[in-house]
Structures are given as structure tokens and as C-alpha cells.
């Protein structure tokens, strides 16, 4: 029987799933994923996790709990740094430790440390460390990773060309997968900003992307912006942004706002997110300078959708009103 590795469908899953899956496939390891977030997962997560954590971390705990009896290992890498001189969110730094502390009866956790703060060479070390759980052949491990990384890079480049990220594909019809789509078929283009684990988890964000799509709105996410471009625009900050995801979110937003390539910005943030508290303010100021409408949606454990729907509707109404679309609104005072 093949060894089974569980990948919880939370946090960086949304960024690196393709890479991880391919890597483990190449090593002939069976990958078991937890299902999409559902109420059971949310409930177990909230119960297991420490109270102060943000919603996506709680949800992640739920995914781990789902997997714990079904696999031999659970893959929870410890992401410390993804870029020279930068850091990840402290919650990523401590994720495997938090999980271990809060959930009993876990199988072995593969908590490879990914720390590229000083040098990219550490990546090779992390890859080898992960692969050693399954084979003693370092060449095989590196080959498995290189092939997976190539595939992953292809996917990332496709997103930069405007292909909707795979986690969003379910929301879109197949025609939206084409890169050379007709821009005029959309009423508005909205940049949906936020961390991947909030933007792509349709349960915790109450299907936000789909709701926008149903209103004939083209959704652009952070992952669809070329990282080099985002980094270039992030340099315009008076101080260097030392969070990698901050670079992407703020830089990506700045690029589209300055080019006026979007009609509005929706920032989706989990209640209590420390990074977002800084990032959303930077984006809001830039949006205001350029007269691009901006709104903030905060998510927590709420499952009532009325509040979110009202905010989306009002935001889109405003975008249309600003167009001077007088057929929809009274022209008199």
C-alpha cells in the first residue's frame, strides 16, 4: 500500500497546491486532500484552534482534523520566508506548532522549514528534507521537485496572462478561461484583493467571486498580477514592505490602480488580520488618490449573508451611479 500524505485545504494550499501535489505524485506518494471547507470543518476548526487566531487559521485546523485519521503524514510546511529579506505572516511561521498544540492524535507532521530570507539555496534543503520521508535517493527527490516546479511556474505564468486561478475556475464558465476574452462583455472590472486563503475559499467568503460574476463583473485577483510588476510598484512605498504577501497585494493593487485598469477595489479581509490592517490602509489611500472606489469586506465566523450582499450590491450600484447611468436612478434630487 502506498504511503498517504494529507494536504489540508487551507492557508498556502491555494497558492502551492499544484506544486505540492505534483511533487508527491512524482515521488509515488498518494496525496489525500481535505474537502472544500464546509460547516463541519469550520466548527471543528473553531473549537480546536486558539481563540485569538484569524478565521483562515481556524479553518486550517478543521482541515487538519479531518485528515488526521486518514493519512500517514500531514504536510504543513513552516513558511518563514519566501523571498530575500522578507517574511511571511507570523501565523505561517507558527502554523505546524499551533496545529500540534491544539489537535490531539495527529499522525506525523511534515513541517519542513522554508526560509529563503538569506538565500534561495535553502529551498533545496527544504525539498530534500521533505522528500526524505519517502525515499533516500536525493536525485529522485530533486528531479521530482524540478518537474513539479516547472509545471507550477507554467500555471503561474498563465495566471499572469489573465487566466483565472484554478481555485476560481468553478465560479467561471469555460469561456472565461481563454486569455483573449472580449473585455466589453463585462460591465465592470473589480480587483478582489486579499490573501489567497480568503479569496479562494468560497465557504468562508460566502461565494464572493461568484456573486460578482453573476453581476457580470470581471474579477481580478492578486495572483493574476505579474509578481515582477507588483514588486516594481511596491517600491513606490516610502518604506520597503517586508511581508512577501504585502508586496504582492499592495504592489499589485498599486499597478492596476495607477494604470486605471479597474473600476473598483474590494478588499477581503479576515477579522483581526494584522497584515491586512496595514495593507488595506495603503491600498485605500492609493485608490482614493486615483479616485477609484474602494470598499472593505470583513469576514469572520458569520454565516448570514445579508451583510455581505448589501455591501456588494451597494458597491456595484455606486460604480454604476458614478457612470452617470441615469436610466437606473432618479435624475432629480
Amino acid at each position, binding site marked *: 500500500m502506498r504511503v498517504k500524505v494529507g494536504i489540508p485545504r487551507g492557508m498556502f494550499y491555494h497558492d502551492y497546491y499544484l506544486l505540492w501535489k505534483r511533487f508527491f505524485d512524482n515521488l509515488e506518494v498518494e496525496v489525500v486532500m481535505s*474537502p472544500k471547507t*464546509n*460547516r*463541519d*470543518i469550520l466548527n471543528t476548526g473553531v473549537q480546536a484552534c486558539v481563540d485569538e487566531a484569524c478565521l483562515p487559521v481556524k479553518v486550517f485546523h478543521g482541515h487538519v482534523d479531518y485528515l488526521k485519521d486518514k493519512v500517514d503524514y500531514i504536510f504543513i510546511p513552516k513558511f518563514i520566508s519566501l523571498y530575500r529579506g522578507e517574511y511571511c505572516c507570523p501565523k505561517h511561521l507558527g502554523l505546524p506548532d499551533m496545529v500540534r498544540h491544539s489537535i490531539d492524535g495527529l499522525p506525523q507532521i511534515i513541517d519542513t522549514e522554508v526560509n529563503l530570507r538569506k538565500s534561495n539555496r535553502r529551498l533545496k534543503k527544504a525539498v530534500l528534507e521533505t522528500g526524505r520521508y519517502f525515499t533516500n535517493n536525493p536525485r529522485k527527490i530533486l528531479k521530482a521537485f524540478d518537474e513539479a516546479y516547472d509545471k507550477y511556474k507554467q500555471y503561474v505564468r498563465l495566471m499572469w496572462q489573465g487566466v483565472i486561478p484554478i481555485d476560481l475556475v468553478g465560479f467561471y464558465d469555460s469561456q472565461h478561461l481563454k486569455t483573449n476574452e472580449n473585455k466589453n462583455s463585462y460591465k465592470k472590472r473589480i480587483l478582489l484583493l486579499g490573501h489567497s486563503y480568503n479569496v479562494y475559499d468560497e*465557504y468562508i467568503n460566502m*461565494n464572493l467571486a461568484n456573486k460578482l460574476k453573476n453581476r457580470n463583473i470581471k474579477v481580478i485577483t492578486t495572483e493574476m498580477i505579474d509578481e515582477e510588476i507588483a514588486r516594481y510598484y511596491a517600491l513606490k512605498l516610502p518604506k520597503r514592505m517586508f511581508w512577501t504577501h504585502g508586496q504582492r497585494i499592495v504592489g499589485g493593487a498599486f499597478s492596476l490602480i495607477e494604470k486605471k485598469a479597474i473600476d473598483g477595489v474590494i478588499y477581503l479581509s479576515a*477579522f483581526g488580520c494584522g497584515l491586512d490592517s496595514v495593507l488595506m490602509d495603503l491600498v*485605500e*489611500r492609493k485608490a*482614493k488618490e486615483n479616485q477609484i*472606489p474602494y*470598499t*472593505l469586506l*470583513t*469576514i*469572520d465566523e*458569520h*454565516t448570514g449573508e*445579508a*451583510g455581505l*450582499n*448589501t*455591501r456588494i*450590491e*451597494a*458597491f456595484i*450600484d*455606486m460604480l454604476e*451611479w*458614478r457612470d*452617470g447611468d441615469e*436610466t437606473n*436612478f*432618479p435624475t*432629480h*434630487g
Partner: protein
Amino acid sequence: MAKYYMGIDVGSVSTNIVLMDDNNNIHYKKYLRTQGKPIEVLKKGIGEIEDKFDKLEVLGVGVTGSGRYLANIIVGADIVKNEITAHAVAGLNVIPDVRTIIEIGGQDSKIILIRDKIVTDFAMNTVCAAGTGSFLDRQAIRLGVDISDFGKLALQSKNSVRIAGRCAVFAESDMIHKQQLGHKQSDIAKGLCEALVRNYLNNVGKGKEILPPVLFQGGVAANIGIRQAFKEALGMEVHVPENYDVMGAIGAAILAKEEVKKTGRTNFKGTSLHKMDYQVNGFECNGCSNLCEVIEIKEDGKLLARYGDKCGKWSNIINDRDFKLA
């Protein structure tokens, strides 16, 4: 025969109904406490209208508020609009060159910025309801003061007490400590008004350019203590419209008027709908691990609507059936 447009705002705390003529004059308004029973309250309100007007033609109906979808199912509305748009439309009707609308309701607080008669920016409170009407309600109970006397009490104070306003729970403990120190009740009431206004301006109003004329609407505008605190904090006149408590409903009525002018007909089911029997049933769907809470509404035994499921398994059935019936 009186011909009116009806506007309905089903909010978390109050349900408001207005009747408006073609010139946007309000002929009837009703402010009812929702008390978590939106359907009952809606029926009651419409029943009262039927009793009051023997001959009434409703030309169109607009619904707004967090219960707008439910209200639409019950009454058959011509337009379903969010509260921001409804409040902006109503505010523009009162002061055509209004530039800022402050709206504080039971669970929501909003700021709407209008420039050249167009909504250019808005903000709402986030997931937390601190700094809204519910906050004042709670603290009035804690002080043992009726909420309708709260504002008057605050005005008597010459020396307000500073109270933490970020969170209703923080405010409560801070207030108790101040009470124990022996501060006057009126000073504490004024302190609470200032705390609410400070909280509003720092959260909802953060970074927003508040320019006159300023309209203050929503249920909390009844509180003269809060009005005064806004005036002092902003250093400008704060106008409270005559129908401040039903502005959402007025906006909905105006939007309905526009809509009906376009479509030429109304979907309204008639005022007799209050005699119908509505049953609401909730159940948990076990079809998958989402365990959605599905709600179904029946009108005299006939299924009217079903919603709450993520996959559409339940809500789609009814659409199919309606299609066949039609």
C-alpha cells in the same frame, strides 16, 4: 381614490412602511419594531394600512433593508434595493445638494458621501455592531433610563465623562466603573453619546471627507444627545430630516416609482396579503457536509420560496415548479 407608492424597509430593529404620492410627499408612515419576526410585523403593518385607507391603489412597491429579500417574497415588490442606495436617494430628496449622509440604525451604521448628486463613496461598520443603536439601547438599560429620554438626559450635562467607545463590552465595564465613582447619570449619558460619535467617526468615518450639508438619518437620529455630539465633533450644522426614521423606506418608494414608470405595472400582491397565512420552516439539509440551513416559506400551504442552500438543490426545485405552473 388615493394612489400611492409604497416603500418598505425591513431592518434588524425596525420595519418601516411609507406611502408616498407622485410628488414624493409622504402621506403615511409606520415605524414598527421588527423584534425578530419580520413576516408578522410586515403583515401587521400592511393590515393597518388596509384598515386606515378604504380606497387605496398601490402603484408600486420598493423594498430595502436586511430583510428585503424576505419582504419581496411576501409582498411582491417592483424593486429590491440595498440600504445604501435607498438612503442616498431619500437623502437627495430632502436636501438636493447634500454631500454627507450619516445613517445609524439598529445594527448598521453607514456614511455615504455624495458629490454632485452622485454617491462617490460609502462605508459601513464591519462585522461588529458597536457604535450603533443596539449599543445605546443596551447602555440605556444599564443606566435604567428609557431610550427615548436618553438624549434629553445627555443634554442636561455640563461636564461629560469620557467612556471607552470601541466596543460595547468595553464601554459597559468603563461605564460601571464611572458609575461607581459617583459620576452623575446625565454626565455618563453625555459621555456615551460622545463615545458613540467618536467611534463612528474613527471607524465608519475613517478617512472620509465630511463636507456640509450633512444629513443625519436612521433611528438613532431621534436622540438629541447624539445630534448634539455630532454637531460638536464635526463643528458644522447637522440636519435631521422630518422623516429621519423611515428614510430607507422613502428611498425604496422613490426607486419603486422610477421602476414602475419604466415597466408600467406593479408586482404588488395587494393589501389583502395580510390575511394570508405564512408559515416559515427551517430545516437542515443532509445532502452533503455543508449542512445548509434551508428556509422555506409557504403562503396558505403553497410553497412561495426556499433559500439558504448553497448548491441550489432546494431553491431550484421551486423555480422549476413555478415554471411549469406558468
